[in-house]
């Protein structure tokens, strides 16, 4: 097998939706301990790829492997304990408090009896790690966008996963809270987790990720360190825009000139 024993990998996965190819034979491997950003234009297949990697979607062809085992053959609880998934713009339906929300992250460990001692200590640890302890007793619907984003990450963290997959985790945040959230995600990766994100903003992707994967029409158009991947030529080819890309103090400065 080509899959690393402790890694997350996709091997030639394809997905099509009512005849339209969404992903075409995408192969990619991830290692723990770093942040990878998946970028690409609308409809490039970013969210679909992430859902396949999370074991939530069965690809029409190919397979996703988690630590050497096909992810779809893992028991759901086993998979959920190792890998946490944050969906795009998650909704929290009821006015539960933050601690209860974070406790939902323990679902893969709980039965009918609810949270046990271990679960409660994992929840408290997740609250502390994300700096959400101060508002742990507040209902989620009273939080600001930034607080909410951290609480949702705490929810994912409560399951003590090795892998954290997040679909557009910065949606709806102002730039300050975007940077806070990215810093938190990077710190979680530095703890030894594998963090894979889809992102819209290329400059932010360049800033957070050691590795950027560009998806274009269901295929990987580029894969590597941001400074090598996000070039003017690639932006022209994939996004159809003319841009000036230069090293900047925060990573890359991408100045859009116009549409090609």
């Amino acid at each position, binding site marked *: 097998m080509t899959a690393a024993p402790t890694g997350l990998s996709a091997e030639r996965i394809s997905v099509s939706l009512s005849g339209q190819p969404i992903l075409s034979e995408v192969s990619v491997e991830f290692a723990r301990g770093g942040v990878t950003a998946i970028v690409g234009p609308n409809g490039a297949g970013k969210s679909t790829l992430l859902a396949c990697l*999370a074991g939530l979607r069965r690809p029409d062809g190919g397979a996703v492997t988690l630590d050497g085992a096909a992810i779809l053959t893992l028991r759901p609880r086993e998979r959920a304990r190792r890998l946490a998934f944050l969906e795009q713009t998650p909704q*929290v*339906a*009821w006015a539960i*408090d933050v601690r209860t*929300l974070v406790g*939902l992250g323990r*679902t893969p460990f709980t039965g009918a009896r609810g949270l046990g001692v271990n679960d409660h200590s994992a929840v408290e640890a997740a609250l502390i790690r994300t700096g959400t302890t101060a508002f742990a007793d507040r209902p989620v619907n009273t939080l600001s966008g930034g607080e909410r984003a951290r609480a949702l990450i705490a929810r994912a963290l409560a399951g003590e996963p090795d892998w954290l997959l997040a679909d557009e985790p910065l949606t709806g945040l102002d730039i300050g809270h975007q940077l806070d959230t990215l810093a938190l995600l990077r710190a979680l990766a530095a703890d030894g987790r594998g963090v894979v994100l889809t992102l819209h903003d290329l400059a932010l992707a360049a800033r957070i990720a050691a590795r950027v994967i560009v998806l274009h029409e269901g295929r990987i158009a580029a894969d590597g360190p941001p400074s090598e991947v996000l070039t003017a030529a690639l932006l022209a080819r994939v996004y159809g825009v003319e841009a000036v890309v230069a090293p900047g103090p925060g990573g890359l400065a991408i100045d859009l000139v116009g549409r090609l």
Partner: protein
Amino acid sequence: MTGRTVAIQLGLLILIAALCVASLMVGPVHVPLSAWTDHADARWPIILELRLPRTILALAVGAGLGTAGAAMQGYTRNPLADPGALGVSAMAALGAVLTLYLGAGGTQPWVLSTAAMAMAMLAVILLLALAGVGSGVTTFVLAGVILQTLAGAGVALALSLAPNPWAVTEIVNWLMGSLADRSLDEVRFALPFIGAGVVLILFTGRALDALTLGETSARSLSVDLRVTRALLAVGVALVTGASVAVTGVIGFVGLIVPHLLRPLVGSRPGALLLPSALGGAVLVLAADVTVRIIPSGNEVKLGIAMAALGGPFFFVLLLSLRRKLA
């Protein structure tokens, strides 16, 4: 928080006990506590054969409908969901009315109940198919309206084609929902189904909690939604079908009770199930005692009393929801 939930459940249990005493005492004939222990008392049969079945049925139907409402709200993440509001009760009633119309309901009680439960099941399946998980408030209410309309049309058809005035009276009386003149036979018949339905629904608690985060997140947290859906469809159908079969349509229980109790248990849908069972029992028993106290020639039908209470409640709930959504 769990301590608070326990306290609420204890409080509801005390209320239930008090209401049981009242329910056995109150009615056209007042039966004081002193007559309870004396089996030779002329009023003893009233307790045993009239008030006791009525009390047990009120508790069971209330608990069932309360649980079903709480679970449907949790599953749809929609505070307007309830077997009554979404047409499940109406479909169950249609099933029962059809057997009354065909004349089979009177002769074989299980025919009517089975038809009610089957139609309730069909209604839940149609609801899930029409609206699906996580659709907006509007889709669900519209799906409910469709079911209500279908069921209403079916019942109207049965009434207009009824072979004799006696059948019409029977159908109309039964549709209005009441606990009066029920026997222990009906208790024996309904209790196992309602009980089984409630137990099935209680198993969905963990999944309902996770569904707070939406369908995808729940799946990512290892919840198997197919199991949840199956438990819920069968559980709600058993509860609603069996309840409607013995008491006719008693609406709004599943709407009102979870809504009132939700803030008290910290809004977690799984934590709301058991309190809603107890709260439903309290509400239906209290309403049934009330209709017996109201001075009127004929006893006010319980279904009508609940609708009179629930209609305005539904209205206020909708207004507050609209304010929240706006």
